[in-house]
C-alpha cells in the first residue's frame, strides 16, 4: 500500500510505502508534525484539512489497521502531553492575574504557591488528568476526578498544600503537607487504586 503524508495543515508532499510511513510516524518527535492518508482518499484529506479537523478524523481514511493503531497511540500520548503543558502554562499565567479577577476581591496566587503547584504537576504522570484553578484568596487549587464518586482537591496556599477528598457522599480533609513529594505520592497511590 502506498501512503502519502505531510505536515498537518500543509498539502501532501511525499508518497512512501507502508513500512516507511510507519517508521516516520514512530520516529516523529511530535505527532502534530506528521499526518497520513492513503492515496485515493485525497479529496477527504483535503476536505478535512480545509475544515481544520482533528487528526483523529483524518486517520479514519487510513485502511491499514496497524498504521492506524500506531497513530491512535501516538495521538493519545500527544494529547495527554499537550493537556499537561496547558495546565503548566495555565498555572504560570496565574501570576499575572490582577486583583479582583473573580469580580470581587480575588487576589493572585503568591509565587510560593505557583512553585509548589508546578512541582506537584511536574511530578505526576501525564496519564493522571487534573484541572487547575486560582483561589480567590491567593492560592491554587488542583482537582482530580478519579472516578464518578471519587474527587480529590489540593489547595495550595503559600508553601502548604492541603488535601480534600470526597468518596461517595463523605468528604474529609487530610493534614497539611509542605513537600511536593508527599502530595505526589498521595495522588499516585490514589491513582493506582482507581
Amino acid at each position, binding site marked *: 500500500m502506498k501512503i502519502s503524508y505531510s505536515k498537518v495543515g500543509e498539502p501532501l508532499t511525499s508518497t512512501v510505502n507502508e513500512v516507511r510511513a510507519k517508521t516516520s510516524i514512530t520516529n516523529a518527535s511530535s505527532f502534530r508534525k506528521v499526518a497520513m492518508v492513503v492515496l485515493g482518499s485525497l479529496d477527504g484529506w483535503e476536505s478535512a484539512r480545509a475544515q481544520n479537523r482533528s487528526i483523529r478524523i483524518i486517520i479514519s481514511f487510513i485502511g491499514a489497521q496497524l498504521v492506524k493503531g500506531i497513530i491512535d497511540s501516538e495521538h493519545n500520548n500527544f494529547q495527554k502531553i499537550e493537556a499537561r503543558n496547558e495546565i503548566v502554562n495555565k498555572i504560570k499565567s496565574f501570576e499575572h492575574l490582577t486583583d479582583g479577577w*473573580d469580580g470581587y476581591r480575588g487576589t493572585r496566587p503568591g509565587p510560593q504557591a505557583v512553585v509548589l503547584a508546578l512541582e506537584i504537576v511536574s511530578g505526576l504522570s501525564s496519564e493522571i488528568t487534573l484541572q487547575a484553578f486560582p*483561589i480567590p484568596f491567593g492560592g491554587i487549587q488542583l482537582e482530580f476526578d478519579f472516578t464518578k464518586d471519587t474527587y480529590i482537591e489540593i489547595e495550595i496556599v503559600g508553601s502548604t498544600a492541603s488535601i*480534600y477528598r470526597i468518596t461517595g457522599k463523605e468528604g474529609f480533609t487530610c493534614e497539611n503537607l509542605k513537600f511536593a513529594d508527599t502530595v505526589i505520592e498521595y495522588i499516585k497511590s490514589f491513582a493506582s487504586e482507581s
Partner: protein
Amino acid sequence: MNPQIVEKDEWLYRRCPPDPMYWKRTDNTTSSILFKTDALNPELSVDRDGSRMEDDIVKHILTDHEMYGVAKAQCHICITCGASFFPSPLAENQFHAGIYGSPQKEKVNRGLAKKMEKEFIVVQAPILTVD
C-alpha cells in the same frame, strides 16, 4: 426585603468570571474556587433578589462587569449545605449579603464550597474571552 435577615425563599446571585480558565472543560461548569473564602475575609459576597425581576438583578450585578456571568441559588438550599447568611448592605449596593460557613461567621470551607458549586445555577453565561 427584610433588612435584618435573609429569608429562606430568597434567591442569591453571584458573579462568575469570563475567562475560560475558571470553567471546567469537561462539563462547562465552574469550580468550587468561586465559593471559597478564607479566615481573613470569611464573607462570600452575593446579591439578594430583593423582590426584583431577575433581568434587573442581572443587569445590576453586571454593571461594570459586562463580560461576567451570573449564577444563583436559593437560600434554603444553601442552608441545607451548611451555609449561613447575613445581610451586608453596602453604600453602593443595598442588596449585598454575605454567605458564611457558620452562624459564627466562619469562612466558607472547601466542603461547603464544593456543595454550593453543585447548587448554583448559571442564569447568564459569561462572555468567554478566549476560546
